[in-house]
């Protein structure tokens, strides 16, 4: 990377995350000043966003190529009081906590806890939600049966398609006008609501244009003051960019990136949707601009003479164009890193304890016509990922059977540096998953995965994650006849004393009843929360850019998207399989321990029977070893979970689906789950994603992949499999090739996703003890990468423990 990018990158790494009161203040000011009390909620929300974008501080960093910040400066992170009002204690915790902290100045603390808190108290979504939830729901929530995704962050979980590269905001406005004209104000009882929603969209389209123009003005001032001719020309070019887009569609690579970035900022300023936002298939969307940049049909657009040519002479336009495209992409990458996820507290912080905000750039896959989509830009993006080594944005490789091996090998050479990115996804499986959910083939091909591993039709789908679901905890409650042993409270139905179960069938039968019970409670709560968002917190900007909201005149949060999917994410499938396997094997098959004795031992965390614990831990057929005994049990749990959730209607006209991913929730869920029948001690983390329980697999990676593939991935919306390799394994080409073949084989078996941590345990231990020396060490946690030293101690320990697979020499 050149010195400019190096400096920008370092500045971004050095910036300390802090809380900014700017957005909360502007929002509060707007609602206090707003005199038009008759305006509809969507229009008010639109005006509020417009007010923020028109009044927030414009930040332009020295030497930046892509401009725009959500806060007044990099990593100055706003709060969203309409969703969550932070108390003095919350802010103190954010400031003081060791990991994922945000500095909170006294001034900020004062503003947020006085003016802001006074206005929003009783009106915030978080308060509304907890007010509306039933006592049963609250019991489950505090027991750790499930988490609630939408209590501190808004629905989002979505990705942009290619539409902004074809349409400027003026085109969107035209489309809105057309839709308003078509409204049937006589016969459609919804017509007025639709009109309000469409007007709201129109307001935010204008807001984005004026936000860009404010940047243009600031750039003009800077250009005016600049004495260096080259820099002046560059600032003027940037000014020109901000005057052209977003009003009009972009004309070159630079404008395309700048346009996306403004859109991104609007989405994450309007509300704090989960997974921030995401440009998705960047190598596809930008490819036409990239080709122009490379010299083919440049057509004198005037961007070529930026005059920073250092030794471009003799390389031809192509090489210079490539370098410039790379520099712009790198500048774009840094913008993501400037934006930590909005601050989370309480259980939400536990389930997703990271600065990462899950923007996942997709590379590769297939085109709309189904052909190989890998292009030169795909490879350039991999170069950028390798050089930037930033946790944000996340990156992934879409691998179809049609994509070339060289593409995977290139990515593996990045992965082997121990950076945890990119993760690898099976495009062909993703497409089949979407077809099964009833999506159009072309929409499926144009989609991919976002967040951690979630399958989605980009630009056309609201796929909302509603909360993690603790499968082992439900079994724990089953084995305690409906009582949560941690609290002693009865929260599930009475399904029988386990001592009376005559076979493993009894366990399954009771578990299934408990499972249905808790899923029902979760969905009943979700229905209320969905309606709260639809009513109180429409998102006209996200709506504007999601198909088919303009046509329908409906908000993203109210079912405006073409596809509307809700997820409940299953956690701990490896753990629960081992728990059931231990019961089946030791109690019913071998009869070496009675159910009563086993339960007694579990109750006291094996304090009096370490011998039994060891036996359970080491002599149980466990998931992850390609052993049908355990894997068949996994399949049965999976099928029960699938049946309990899949196909149930949500409030947006779509359906519930399942996916299997944990972020960091397996650590939290483990902490509230007692000792388990597989010999796991109380409080220890559960298995993550669909990976085997840490240390349970001992037959190598092919066995893990075989076990994992016995789950029907195609009936999920994403699964997460984590594999760890030591760097020595990947030293030579043979290791790289073997790993690629491993990936191809797993995908042949319809595996959805696999990610690799390439690191040795000693390095991790050193990093844990001397965090200062390992600031740059990035590891794959679960669906995302993070700085190792930023992880909690438990999570650090867990990553150290995860089985290291090394190829043994013959």
């Amino acid at each position, binding site marked *: 990377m050149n010195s400019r990018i190096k400096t920008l990158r370092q500045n971004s790494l050095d910036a300390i995350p802090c809380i900014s009161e700017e957005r909360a203040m502007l929002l509060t000011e707007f609602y206090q000043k707003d005199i038009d009390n008759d305006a509809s909620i969507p229009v008010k929300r639109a005006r509020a966003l417009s007010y923020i974008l028109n009044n927030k501080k414009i930040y332009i960093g020295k030497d930046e190529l892509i401009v725009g910040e959500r806060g007044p400066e990099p990593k100055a992170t706003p709060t969203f009081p309409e969703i969550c009002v932070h108390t003095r204690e919350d802010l103190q915790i954010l400031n003081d906590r060791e990991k994922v902290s945000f500095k909170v100045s006294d001034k900020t603390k004062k503003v947020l806890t006085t003016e802001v808190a006074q206005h929003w108290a009783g009106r915030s979504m978080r308060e509304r939600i907890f007010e509306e939830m039933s006592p049963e729901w609250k019991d489950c929530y505090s027991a750790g049966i499930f988490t609630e995704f939408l209590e501190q962050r808004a629905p989002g979980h979505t990705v942009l398609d290619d539409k902004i590269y074809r349409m400027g905001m003026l085109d969107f406005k035209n489309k809105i006008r057309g839709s308003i004209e078509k409204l049937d104000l006589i016969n459609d009882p919804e017509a007025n609501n639709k009109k309000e929603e469409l007007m709201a969209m129109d307001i935010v389209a204008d807001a984005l244009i004026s936000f860009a123009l404010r940047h243009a003005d600031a750039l003009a001032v800077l250009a005016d003051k600049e004495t260096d001719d080259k820099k002046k020309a560059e600032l003027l070019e940037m000014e020109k960019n901000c005057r052209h887009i977003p009003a009009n569609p972009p004309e070159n690579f630079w404008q395309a990136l700048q346009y996306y970035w403004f859109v991104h900022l609007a989405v994450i300023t309007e509300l704090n949707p989960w997974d921030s936002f995401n440009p998705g298939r960047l190598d596809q969307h930008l490819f036409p601009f990239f080709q122009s940049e490379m010299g083919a049909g440049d057509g004198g657009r005037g961007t070529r003479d930026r005059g920073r040519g250092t030794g471009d002479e003799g390389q031809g336009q192509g090489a210079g164009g490539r370098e410039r495209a790379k520099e712009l992409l790198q500048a774009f990458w840094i913008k993501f890193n400037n934006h930590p996820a909005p601050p989370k507290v309480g259980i939400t912080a536990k389930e997703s304890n990271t600065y990462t905000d899950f923007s996942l750039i997709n590379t590769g896959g297939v085109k709309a016509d189904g052909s190989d989509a890998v292009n030169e830009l795909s490879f350039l993006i991999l170069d950028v990922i390798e050089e930037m080594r930033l946790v944000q944005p996340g990156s992934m490789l879409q691998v179809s059977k049609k994509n070339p091996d060289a593409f995977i090998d290139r990515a593996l050479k990045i992965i082997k540096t121990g950076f945890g990115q990119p993760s690898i996804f099976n495009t062909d499986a993703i497409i089949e998953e979407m077809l099964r959910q009833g999506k159009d083939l072309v929409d499926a091909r144009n989609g991919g995965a976002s967040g951690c591993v979630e399958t989605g039709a980009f630009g056309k789908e609201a796929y909302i994650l509603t909360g993690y679901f603790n499968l082992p905890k439900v079994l724990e409650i089953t084995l305690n006849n409906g009582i949560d042993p941690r609290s002693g409270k009865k929260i599930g139905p009475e399904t029988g004393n386990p001592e009376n179960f005559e076979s493993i069938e009894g366990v399954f039968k009771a578990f299934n009843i408990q499972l249905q019970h808790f899923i029902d409670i979760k969905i009943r709560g979700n229905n209320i929360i969905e309606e709260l968002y639809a009513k109180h917190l429409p998102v006209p900007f996200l709506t504007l850019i999601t198909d088919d909201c303009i046509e329908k005149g409906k908000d993203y949060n109210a079912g405006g998207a073409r596809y509307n999917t809700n997820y409940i994410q299953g956690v701990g499938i490896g753990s629960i399989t081992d728990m059931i396997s231990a019961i089946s094997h030791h109690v019913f098959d071998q009869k070496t321990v009675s159910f009563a004795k086993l339960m007694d031992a579990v109750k006291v965390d094996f304090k009096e029977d370490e011998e039994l614990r060891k036996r359970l831990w080491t002599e149980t057929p466990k998931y992850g070893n*390609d052993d049908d005994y355990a894997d068949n049990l996994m399949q049965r749990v999976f099928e029960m979970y699938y049946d309990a959730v899949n196909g149930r209607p949500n409030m947006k006209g779509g359906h519930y689906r399942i996916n299997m991913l944990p972020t960091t929730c397996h650590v939290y869920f483990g902490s509230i789950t007692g000792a388990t029948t597989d010999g796991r001690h109380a409080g220890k983390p559960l298995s993550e994603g669909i990976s085997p329980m840490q240390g349970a697999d001992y*037959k*190598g*990676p*092919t*066995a893990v992949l*075989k076990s994992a593939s016995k789950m029907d991935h195609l009936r999920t919306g994403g699964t997460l499999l984590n594999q760890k390799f030591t760097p020595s394994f990947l030293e*030579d080409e*043979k*290791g790289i*090739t*073997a790993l690629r*073949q*491993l990936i*191809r*084989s797993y995908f*042949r*078996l319809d595996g959805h996703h696999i990610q690799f941590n390439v690191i040795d345990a000693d390095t991790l231990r050193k990093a844990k003890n001397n965090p200062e020396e390992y600031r740059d060490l990035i590891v794959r946690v679960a669906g995302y990468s993070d700085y190792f030293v930023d992880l909690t101690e438990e999570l650090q320990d867990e990553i150290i423990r995860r089985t290291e*697979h090394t*190829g*043994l*020499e*013959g």
Partner: protein
Amino acid sequence: MHAYIFNIQRFSIHDGPGIRTTVFFQGCPLQCVWCHNAEGIPQFLESSEGDKIPAGIKIYSIDELLEEVLKDRVFFDESGGGVSFSGGEPLMQTEFLLEILKKLRELNIHTTVDTSGYAPTGIFKEVVALTDLVLFDLKIIDNKKHNLYTGTDNSLIHANLDHLAKSKIPFRIRIPLVNEMTADDENLISIAVMLKGKGDVDIDLLSYHALGFEKQQKTDFISSNTKLTAPGKERIEEIRDLFRSYDFNVNIGG
């Protein structure tokens, strides 16, 4: 028909092409001082009822072993891999080995056999005829030293290698490098001279690793007070160049 097997290693990538499953047969006629699989040396071939089989050794029928190795078939197909037989000395459990090789050939699965070459020539011929790639270990040319460090005579080994070289069955020569026993110039040049004239020979140089010695001390099957060391990186490269000067294809590691 049963076999005594002390380990099955999936995802082996150093015992032939692609991703492989390596089956380690129990029992070896050699007792190499440097053996890194020394737990595989003792034989239980004549085991009758009541004999205690040590922990770690499993008895497999043909069908059971076939089921186990076929678990990774999708990986074999994807990578051009297959099944490797090692040990111990797989040829010592002749009938079983022949049968499983036959079955795998019927299923069109690639096989390798890693052998010391110490087996009656008739058996050796039968086995290699059913094998896709033979990994032939060559250790010490001086017969006296060979006897001293491996406990066996090497003339049978050399006769079998002659046969293999003439048979047109693909093979690779594997040379374990132990400073004190095999990695001296005299022995290496003797190997090179012997291999000259055996056509296009591929050589794998396998560096002795200390892991074997630790395991060996634990198993007690071989006693040796000699401290063994592995050649350093530069020495291995020297050795590689030595063999290259004889026009062999040389690969460091398996």
